[in-house]
């Protein structure tokens, strides 16, 4: 049989092991994740995030903030949300080194575009997607500045990593210096055709978006993690897949992919990467609610729910009807 590591039969991104958990600031832990068998993880680029799937069925998105040249681990930073719905509390209080956690993605709705100059603006935990962007800007020799705001110095993660960049980084804890002087930074950025990347809490994004309302499309790039309403829950139980054209029905067990189940039923579906990145196995969904775990579809397509990548995506509903 094949030695092909992508044909292992298990969803490529179903479960990763927590190999390190460390406190990196007040209320922030960094997790390092690795595949239980040590295989390569799907590639990613700065701005990408993964979904963590919690035992409650809740999923949360976390930006990858590690090194993309390391193909074997993902690193994320998780802030304990005081008024959250339990995801971050679970990470902080329950999830331990050695545990296995459900992971989806990576997907990238916040890609770093080429530019001579960047202004990065982070609020609190919003620093995470910007860390690999900064490394990349440095690598290509772009001119960049980071304005990093937060509540207090001790609540601001990854400051030691950023210290190496000297005065390119403006650290502005609110209890020491009040709010960062965004208008001055943004005016300078506008004058020099700088790409502006902002990630942080809603009020920060709102303030920047207001200021930049008249800017050309694409100059300002923001990321907001809107918690997704995925219906009831991601399923741990098996679900039914009905193949409309073949008149067959198959059951997809928790450990198998839809693709495997469909192929086991004798229906040939082309696939290629088997990790939700190439789009080859894209299949039309006639009924049911897909649980998208790919990195190809954009948010509109995901919410439309009329297609899915069956190599990694699963079902929110008891039954899916596919055009196969």
């Amino acid at each position, binding site marked *: 049989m094949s*030695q092909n590591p*992508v044909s292992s039969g298990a969803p490529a991104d179903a479960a990763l092991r927590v190999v390190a958990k460390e406190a990196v600031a007040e209320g922030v832990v960094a997790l390092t994740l690795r595949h239980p068998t040590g295989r390569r993880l799907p590639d990613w*680029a700065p701005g990408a995030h993964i979904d963590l799937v919690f035992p409650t069925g809740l999923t949360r998105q976390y930006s990858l903030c590690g090194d993309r040249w390391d*193909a074997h681990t993902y690193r994320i930073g998780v802030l304990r949300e005081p008024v959250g719905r339990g995801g971050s509390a679970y990470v902080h209080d329950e999830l331990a080194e050695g545990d296995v956690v459900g992971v989806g993605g990576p997907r990238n709705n916040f890609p770093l575009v080429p530019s001579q100059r960047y202004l990065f603006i982070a609020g609190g935990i919003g620093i995470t997607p910007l860390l690999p962007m900064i490394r990349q800007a440095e*690598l290509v020799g772009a001119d960049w500045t980071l304005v990093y705001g937060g509540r207090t110095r001790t609540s601001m993660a990854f400051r030691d990593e950023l210290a190496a960049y000297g005065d390119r980084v403006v650290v502005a804890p609110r209890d020491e210096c009040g709010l960062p002087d965004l208008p001055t930074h943004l005016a300078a950025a506008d004058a020099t055709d700088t790409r502006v990347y902002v990630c942080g809490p809603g009020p920060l994004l709102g303030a920047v978006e207001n200021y930049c309302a008249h800017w050309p499309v*694409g100059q300002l790039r923001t990321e907001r993690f809107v918690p997704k309403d995925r219906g009831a829950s991601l399923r741990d139980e098996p679900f039914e897949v009905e193949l409309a054209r073949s008149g067959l029905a198959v059951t997809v067990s928790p450990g198998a992919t839809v693709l495997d189940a469909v192929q086991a039923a004798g229906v040939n579906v082309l696939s*290629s990467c088997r990790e939700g990145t190439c*789009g080859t196995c894209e299949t039309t969904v006639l009924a049911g609610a897909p649980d998208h775990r790919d990195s*190809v579809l954009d948010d509109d397509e995901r919410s439309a729910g009329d297609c899915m990548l069956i190599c990694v995506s699963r079902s929110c509903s008891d039954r899916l009807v596919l055009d196969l």
Partner: protein
Amino acid sequence: MFAPAPILPVSDADPFALDVLEDPLPFQADLRDAGPVVYLQRYGVFAMGRYEQVHAALTDWQSFQSGAGVGLSNFRYETPWRPPSILLEADPPHHDAPRAVLAKILRPRALQKLRASWFRDAEVLVDQVLSTATEFDVVADLAAAFPLRVFPDAVGIPDSGRENLLPYGDHAFNAFGPANGLVAKGAPRVAELSGWVNEQCAREALTADGFGAQIWAAADRGDITHEQAPLVVRSLLTAGVDTTVNGLAAVLYAFARHPEQWAGLRENRTLARTAFDEAVRWESPVQTFFRTATSDTEMGGTMIPDGKKILMFLGAANRDPRRWENPDAFDLARNPSGHVGYGMGIHQCVGQHVARLESEALLTALATRVESWEIAGPVRRHLNNTLRSWESVPVRVRLGQ
């Protein structure tokens, strides 16, 4: 000079010799049997013919870079014949933005808009061919004709000069190999053809609704730079024609040689999609690509030194019996998923969905009309350093009801 380790098999065969290009299968079998990694003395490069290593090298962009060129020429030490492709001959981070832009423009959902018109175009072409003769050449009359009819329109380039696309692509793919007679043959026209292709990449040359215009619109949004836009269009024009022509020729040749498989497709038209990928596995249009080691890198028990070129035989991997059961058979009952004919990993062919759609349209149109067909004369290969290509595949058809 690099001294190969004692366990490293060494070969003095020339994979770019004309007789090997004419029929690469015996060489590929020897290469696979010799070991997971083989040193090709003649060119001072490492070679891989087994699926496991080819797949691993394609996937590991960190260790095996593309930015030093995916041909024999090593851009660390040599000047490329044209400005390098910002997709194929680039590594992260420079590769990210152009790839993301093109992937979005060419993804299956975006191509849905073309589907109906390409299916109609295929019917028209097939009707034209079949109404004039029951003997014809599938290479010239279908495999080359169909992409040249639909793809340049989809990109948005003007009608005049389209005949330049095939010789330009032919030379570009020859140039990935050594500077042999095939490259010399194309050299006299390089300046003229490159000039023409570059002109088509300018915003003014492109229609407002094609892939080309969408690439320029991405530059307006700042997703890529305006300097990158014409190079992304160039990638479409370089990589989108010859490869598809040869992929279509491969699938048509495969069916002409395997009438029972054609009968199977006629019974079950949904096999049209599988058929193309099985043909890409079986007669991989892109046979080889190089990578360059980014550091001293272990592969298949061999240490490949930093800066050394590695030649990956995609075609050999796709017929590796360690991976495929009965690999030399063209068999629609097989699931060809996972073949490396489009590459794998971050450089996996971004236009694969376009090629599949073209093939599906053409095969569907043919399946409606043609009951059976057979090879009607000598098949002639077209030799190219990188592509598995045909000059002529004459066929005789019997039409259905």
